[in-house]
């Protein structure tokens, strides 16, 4: 098993951890996620795009009372990848992991 380079980046790790604490399929608004993570619009948006391109999050845009709304949810693939990454980290601590980072296109 190897680390997931897309997930392991610090901001993306916190994004995935935050989303993983929500029930399966529950979406969170971009503005709320930004506030929870103390991130900027641009920074969060860029990292979410990376995660979306990897298939780890789904981003949904719509309008509520004529105001744009963006919501984010962790996909099943994202939940599985995050679980694998956590297992990998634990294996390193337990001395079972190789400690190599898997390269993935971002």
């Amino acid at each position, binding site marked *: 098993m190897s680390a997931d380079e897309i997930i*392991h980046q610090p901001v993306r*790790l*916190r994004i995935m*951890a*935050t989303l993983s604490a929500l029930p399966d399929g529950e979406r969170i608004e971009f503005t*709320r996620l930004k*506030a*929870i993570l103390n991130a900027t619009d641009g920074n969060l948006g860029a990292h979410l795009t990376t995660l979306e391109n990897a298939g780890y999050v789904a981003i949904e845009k719509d309008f509520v009372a004529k105001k744009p709304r963006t919501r984010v949810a962790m996909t099943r693939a994202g939940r599985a990848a995050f679980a694998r990454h956590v297992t990998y980290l634990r294996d*390193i601590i337990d001395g079972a992991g190789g400690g190599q980072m898997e390269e993935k296109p971002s």
Partner: protein
Amino acid sequence: MTLSPQDATAALRDIDAAQARSATLRGYRRAAPQFLIWGVIWAAGYGLSDGFPHHANAIWAVLVPIGVAAGLFAGRGTEPSFAWRYGAITLAMLAFFAATFFVMAPVTGRQVSAFIPLFVALLYVLAGIFRGPRYVVAGLVVAAATLTGFVFIAGHFLLWMAVVGGGALILAGFWMRKV
């Protein structure tokens, strides 16, 4: 790139912190409508009871079911077990208050009006010990407001509870909605 055990430990610590923060804030968000609903119910119930003290029982007999119905409506869709848990909590609290007032009788209306908010405040503090400090703060504010009014407000304790007790719950509701 190689991850050391220290890197892995730090990453897991970050994950735990982010998950805990996410879960706590989600809990606050879900609790907010309940604080707002019961703040309004308290404000209306205590306010009307202050104006029409002889009809206090009837006022609460109308308002409590409205609050329960509104609470159920606000919590719909949050989780499959919400409705029966909410109903069970309501029945348990009603049974507790009935049994307590039966055992502790005689009690005055003023005592009843102080005891129920103090018990609710205790529940918030206990919930907060497990689920986040905002519940603790809300409970302490409600308890302090209740005791202050009980001791110092002789003539219009119920009006005090409507404004300060109900107001505290409403403010707590808005606070829960914030990130």
